């Protein structure tokens, strides 16, 4: 076979069938793509578009008896894989093709040391002796820039940070120098700073080892950072394919255009200031220290938030941005009194609520409502959505008929069909569920709405719609909103004011536009400098 040596992977006409009784016949249909050595091809698409099915087909990791490749071919360096035996596929995995996954937290075996997990690859695929294997492992750990490889060799995954675990995964994948690396959303679960480092690492190793990379992502910022070429998927088909420049700047397909235009801009929207409106929420020196332990354990304590002074006026959105562990969610939960702060004061209008008893707190509960991150898990799956929405108001004494009428109104407000109140959560899509969660929160007629990463789990096109909806509601109802996010792009679009948190403290606080234009704290500057795709403006297309 005369396959040129510059090709790592060629997929042509690949079709994978879904089991009967699902909403469409094929998971993916007639996929054509090609990954050269020394090339990064980004496969972009929203959830359910078939990106992961494509990747798993190549690796031969499709769940048996559920998904089957029925047509087309997959060639790795010219070798046909679609009809390869299970043994042959096992031989190829990690030697010629490797894969890394989204969740570094769960992708490593928690009860086996990191060194041993890499060693397994060498034991299975090579006949090297122990000494040679250890040397090779330490070398690849060095290459993925893990600090102190000897110590990490015998560490367990839970002792490592998310970024370090992903480096272990990469080391495992690349230790035998495969020609193809499949990376399935490898940075989605990581903080931006770590994400930037991992992207740089993948790029660097790929160049040094002449590896072809099939990089799966939903994030156009990441695409802009890393891709040589881009393939866009929708409903199991590739709708557009081309160089990064071409796809991002001169997209052909309307779906691509829509996707790229939905990427929120890093330049804040112009917004009116509301400095004259009354203050709804004010915190003074708010602090939260978690402590653990008791009679049979030694005491440990973690300072999660400290000296937090923020205020929100009616009709205004305050964003809290920061990386995981910065304390932003702790602050939100303290304000809603889901947890009891260990210090400081919280005022709603003029009522202090940080220290009131649980019984007294009850009358204040309806004034603060939260919309959580994961719409799939924050609605009771066994209750009709109508029941979930009216439960709160009825709890506070509203008659059922009145609460139901209000629920129908709210369904209209969040742009859902009022007749859908007697359905169950699983009959709605992710974006619709988040609208339901918003309706549920609004049913209580709160003065303060807290959105805790409320758009982070949504696909980019849905995300844009829910962000717009939240903004509309804020204006219509003149609500004060606390918006927690790790995504600077989202923050730029919805926040009037911004609090940047790091290690439990607010390091910068002020007008969003001002902070985005002139970040003064070094942490804020560092955060902005690693935002993926910061050098691109998405959605301004060029026409020839």
């Amino acid at each position: 076979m005369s396959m040129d040596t510059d090709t790592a992977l060629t997929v042509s006409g690949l079709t994978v069938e879904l089991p009967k009784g699902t909403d469409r016949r094929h998971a993916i249909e007639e996929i054509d793509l090609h990954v050269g050595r020394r090339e990064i091809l980004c496969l972009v698409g929203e959830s359910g578009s078939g990106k992961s099915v494509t990747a798993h087909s190549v690796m031969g990791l499709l769940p048996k008896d559920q998904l089957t490749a029925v047509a087309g071919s997959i060639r790795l360096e010219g070798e046909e894989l679609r009809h390869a035996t299970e043994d042959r596929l096992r031989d190829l995995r990690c030697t010629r093709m490797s894969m890394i996954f989204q969740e570094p937290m769960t992708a490593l075996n928690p009860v086996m040391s990191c060194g041993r997990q890499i060693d397994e690859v060498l034991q299975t695929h090579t006949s090297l002796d122990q000494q040679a294997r250890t040397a090779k492992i330490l070398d690849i750990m060095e290459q993925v820039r893990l600090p102190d490889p000897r110590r990490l060799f015998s560490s367990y995954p839970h002792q490592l940070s998310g970024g370090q675990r992903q480096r272990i995964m990469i080391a495992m994948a690349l230790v035998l120098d495969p020609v193809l690396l499949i990376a399935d959303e490898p940075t989605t679960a990581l903080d931006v700073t770590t994400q930037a480092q991992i992207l740089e690492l993948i790029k660097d190793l790929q160049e040094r080892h002449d590896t072809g990379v099939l990089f799966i992502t939903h994030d156009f910022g990441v695409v802009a950072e890393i891709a040589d070429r881009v393939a866009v998927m929708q409903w199991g088909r590739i709708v557009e394919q081309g160089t990064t420049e071409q796809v991002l700047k001169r997209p052909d397909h309307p779906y691509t255009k829509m996707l790229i235009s939905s990427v929120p801009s890093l330049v804040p929207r112009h917004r009116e200031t509301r400095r004259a409106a009354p203050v709804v929420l004010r915190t003074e020196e708010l602090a939260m220290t978690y402590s653990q332990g008791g009679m049979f354990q030694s005491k440990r304590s973690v300072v999660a938030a400290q000296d937090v002074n923020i205020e929100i006026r009616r009709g205004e959105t305050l964003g809290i941005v920061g990386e995981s562990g910065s304390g932003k969610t702790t602050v939100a939960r303290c304000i809603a009194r889901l947890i009891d702060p260990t210090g400081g004061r919280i005022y709603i209008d003029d009522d202090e609520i940080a220290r009131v008893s649980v019984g007294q707190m009850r009358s204040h509960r309806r004034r603060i409502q939260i919309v959580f991150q994961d719409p799939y898990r924050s609605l009771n799956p066994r209750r009709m959505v109508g029941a979930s929405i009216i439960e709160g108001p009825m709890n506070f004494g509203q008659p059922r008929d009145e609460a139901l009428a209000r629920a129908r109104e709210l369904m209209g407000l969040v742009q859902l069909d009022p007749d859908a109140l007697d359905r169950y959560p699983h009959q709605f899509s992710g974006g619709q569920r988040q609208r339901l969660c918003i309706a549920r929160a609004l049913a209580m007629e709160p003065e303060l709405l807290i959105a805790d990463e409320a758009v982070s789990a949504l696909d980019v096109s849905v995300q844009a719609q829910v962000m717009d909806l939240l903004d509309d509601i804020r204006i219509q109802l003149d609500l004060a909103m606390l918006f927690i996010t790790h995504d600077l792009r989202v923050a730029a679009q919805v926040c009037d004011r911004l609090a940047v948190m790091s290690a439990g403290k607010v390091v910068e606080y002020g007008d969003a536009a001002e902070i985005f234009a002139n970040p003064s704290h070094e942490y804020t500057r560092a955060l902005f400098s690693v935002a993926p795709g910061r050098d691109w403006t998405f959605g301004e297309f060029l026409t020839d």
Partner: protein
Amino acid sequence: MYGFLMRRLAATIPVLGMVALFVFLLLRMTPGDPAAVLAGDNGTPQQIAEIRETLGLNKPIPVQLGIWFSNLLQGDLGQSYFFKKDVTELILLRVEPTVALAITTLVITVLIAVPIGVIAAYRHGTWLDRCVMGFSVLGFSVPVFVVGYILIYLFAMQFKMFPVQGYKELADGFFPFIHRLILPSITLSVIYIALIARITRASVLEVLGEDYIRTAHAKGLPNRVVLLRHALRNAAVPIVTVIGIGVALLISGVVVTESVYNIPGLGRLTVDAVLGRDYPTIQAVILVFSGVYVLINFLIDLTYSFLDPRIRY
């Protein structure tokens, strides 16, 4: 770790104290008079009163409790009313059969239950899986004594492979010892095999859906290695928990099995002591059993931290 050991051991003392107090009071509250039992059917009221006097049963209950407790602290479990022996001696004589029965049962259970559970999980949805699950339902529903008599009928009376009843001490040689233990152990283990096979299947099945199992497959590891090295070890914590609970529950199963197979162990001693209202013996046996429960729980906790590096005390 050393600190943890000490703290855990210290925590067992109040537990055992509570058990002792509870057992003592419970026995005094239940109807039945040891003196009447000892005097026999023809005992006169005067004889009964004399026996009460010698046993100290006519003293006020708090005084009886005080005496028992202070003896207990000196390591003296008292004298059996019924057997007229030191309870300590009595228990030591009966410990070997019970411990031997428990250990062989445990070994048989683990050797059978864990592998069939793993296979059922690996082949879930197939006829193999359904067989294992079917056996498991059967194992739960058939009472211990029925299993015991069926096994005796088949293997002892029809095929004459094993003796019908009886026990030989280990000192008399290993083969006669184990030969007489096999049927009782199998009888006892049926229900535990059913239980532990089910838990193993559920636990391994859950682990097989984890991301790191996908990683292991992506590394090109053979299925056997993925199953044993990656899945089973991660599934082990709930399995060990249930094995631990099983060992504790075993003690109640021992009572019936020892009666069916006529083995002179602690189970039989318990039955005899209860029938004879032999307070010191009942109290001592229950204390020993609860000591064993506490010890098992402690061992399970230690096993957790050995199995899973994330669990540290």
